[in-house]
């Protein structure tokens, strides 16, 4: 496979840099700063040190014995990104971007957030590096992810409620971009996923790719070989890209990205951009989008706030187009079931986002032989979702 992206940030026909002129110079400057940091050994050394000492990496690759046994099929391993500091994989990326912001002399950071995991991870690194921090969050998400809102405030961040649209992640990102247009000279925008204009998809992928590198090392140590199947949930797709990227050229590894089917693909209430969307341009990149026939972006829906986004990272669009990754879907109901099941089988409460990946593993594992290996990226912990689950009657 050719190295992606090209120098303008294109992954095949996807990606690119579709941004207002006010932001273009900042994106070009960011790209140059990132390239320089990539070449600077002291940057990667510092990044790795923070990952180890502060975030708590490496995260374990845990063999889920009871889960696997109960499903009577393949062996299921969980890549425990939920054990990172702040409770999800998001810290991998925010540490990288905050270090870059510091290197560029920016003392203010902003971010969008859906589930609040990226917001918390950004507020955390802002506190760590003494930066001023504003988090844009949809009002709807502020209600359903209240614990994360408190965490951000405790960490000293300002949470800016976004009322436009459906008041979820897409609208938070619109507002963050607008704010960035007016503050671009001194503010660094920490985008939370492998989307946005170039160089974000590539940069976030690279910061997250530690997940896949560790997984490869760990599974080889434990099993002596690559996994047969990788499964990860996909909203924007940063945890999935993080675990997939290392294995992209390993033909023996099948990869599944799990999109949120919400109330079902036959309804309008889902977030399955690849499975049910069309190619379009939003938030700076060309990718699959949920949209109507006139090119108006539709509102996404998922019980998992972090998957509630009408687009998907451009490299996922590319992996779909080239058939490298198969993108499948899991409904709210299936995710809730998996949420409870993993909690009771393994004593691990997964984030509702990650529960989508678990649910898909529960579907395929029983159909696979006992000596086959599945790795699921358990991207985050589920404490934040307790309220949602209780309201939906997911726990009896």
């Amino acid at each position: 496979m050719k190295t992606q992206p090209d120098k303008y940030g294109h992954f095949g026909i996807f990606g690119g840099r579709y941004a207002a002129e006010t932001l273009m110079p900042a994106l070009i400057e960011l790209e140059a700063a990132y390239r320089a940091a990539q070449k600077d050994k002291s940057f990667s050394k510092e990044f790795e040190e923070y990952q180890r000492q502060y975030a708590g990496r490496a995260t374990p690759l845990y063999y889920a014995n009871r889960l696997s046994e109960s499903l009577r099929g393949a062996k299921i391993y969980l890549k425990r990104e939920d054990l990172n500091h702040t409770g999800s994989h998001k810290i991998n990326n925010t540490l990288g971007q905050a270090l870059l912001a510091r290197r560029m002399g920016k003392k203010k950071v902003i971010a969008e957030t859906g589930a609040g995991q990226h917001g918390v991870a950004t507020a955390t690194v802002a506190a760590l590096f003494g930066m001023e921090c504003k988090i844009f969050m949809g009002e709807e998400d502020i209600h359903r992810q209240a614990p994360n809102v408190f965490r951000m405030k405790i960490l000293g961040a300002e949470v800016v409620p976004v009322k436009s649209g459906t008041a979820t992640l897409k609208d938070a990102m619109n507002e963050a971009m607008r704010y960035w247009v007016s503050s671009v000279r001194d503010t660094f925008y920490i985008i939370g996923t492998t989307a946005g204009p170039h160089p974000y998809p590539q940069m976030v992928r690279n910061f997250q790719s530690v997940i896949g590198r560790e997984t490869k090392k760990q599974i080889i140590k434990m099993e002596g070989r690559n996994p047969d199947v990788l499964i990860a949930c996909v909203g924007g797709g940063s945890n999935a890209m993080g675990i997939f990227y290392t294995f992209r050229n390993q033909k023996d590894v099948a990869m599944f990205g799990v999109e949120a089917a919400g109330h079902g693909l036959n309804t309008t209430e889902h977030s399955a951009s690849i499975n049910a969307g069309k190619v379009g341009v939003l938030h700076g990149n060309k990718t699959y989008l949920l949209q109507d026939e006139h090119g108006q972006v539709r509102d996404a829906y998922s019980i998992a706030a972090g998957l509630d986004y009408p687009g998907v990272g451009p490299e996922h669009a590319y992996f779909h187009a080239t058939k490298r990754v198969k993108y499948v879907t899991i409904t709210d109901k299936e995710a809730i079931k998996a949420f409870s099941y993993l909690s009771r089988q393994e004593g691990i409460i997964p984030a509702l986002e990650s529960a989508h990946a678990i649910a898909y593993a529960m579907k395929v594992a029983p159909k696979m032989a006992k000596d086959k290996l599945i790795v699921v990226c358990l991207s985050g912990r589920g404490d934040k979702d307790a309220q949602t689950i209780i309201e939906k009657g997911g726990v009896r």
Partner: protein
Amino acid sequence: MGRIGDKFESLHAKNEKALIIYLTAGDPSLGVTKELFFGLESAGADILEIGVPFSDPTADGPVIQAASQRALKAGTTLQGVLDLVTDVRKTSSIPIVLFGYYNPIFAYGPKNFAQAAKKAGVDGVLVVDLPPEEAREFRSHTDVAGIDFISLAAPTTPEVRLRRIAAEATGFLYYISITGVTGTAVPRIEDIKREVSKIRRITKLPLAVGFGISNSKQAQEIARFADGVVIGSAVVRLIDENKSNPDLVKNVCTYVREIKKALRWQVDD
């Protein structure tokens, strides 16, 4: 040269500056947009910038965001906007620029759009989120159709980049007067003047300034050194405030007439 170039030339010959008025198509309805169209032309608008509503207008402030939402709720589509242009073009020769975001055009099909827009009588397009780096495919259709590709220059644009943008732009160059989204800050005249004179050394294209201009005083001051001023949010706000007023068109036209008057006085300074 197209209608846009001709307009700047004829204004230049009269020592007058262009008044460019933005309004969101379909806010509150395409019928009202059509009435406003003719009203604005007779009130002295030189060029009309017709906003094609989009669900996610990331470069627009609250006023135009709300207008886009109203227009979309009223069922406005890109096809509807093109039909409106076709209709008014039967009797009007005012230059028309479509202003919007790329996704509705991409969904329409860039080639189909270029042909349909030309046929409708569109003179230029300004696609906010389509910088020169991504514009190649689109322009391969609009250039062939003879539609001007109006390009943006921002206060943050460095000179090297400015040269490239100016070299590739057609129609006029649109200088964004504030580091911000539309209608959200007061432009600083001295800064704009300095930037505009810098751009002058780079290009012979007419230069219009917009994004934060809301009154005749600002318009007049900017017109001293620019070739045109764009008024957007202020007009859109006025339309919204008067949406149930039978004198909507009249009130908007009074406002526009006053600004045009200020731009004419300019000459006598």
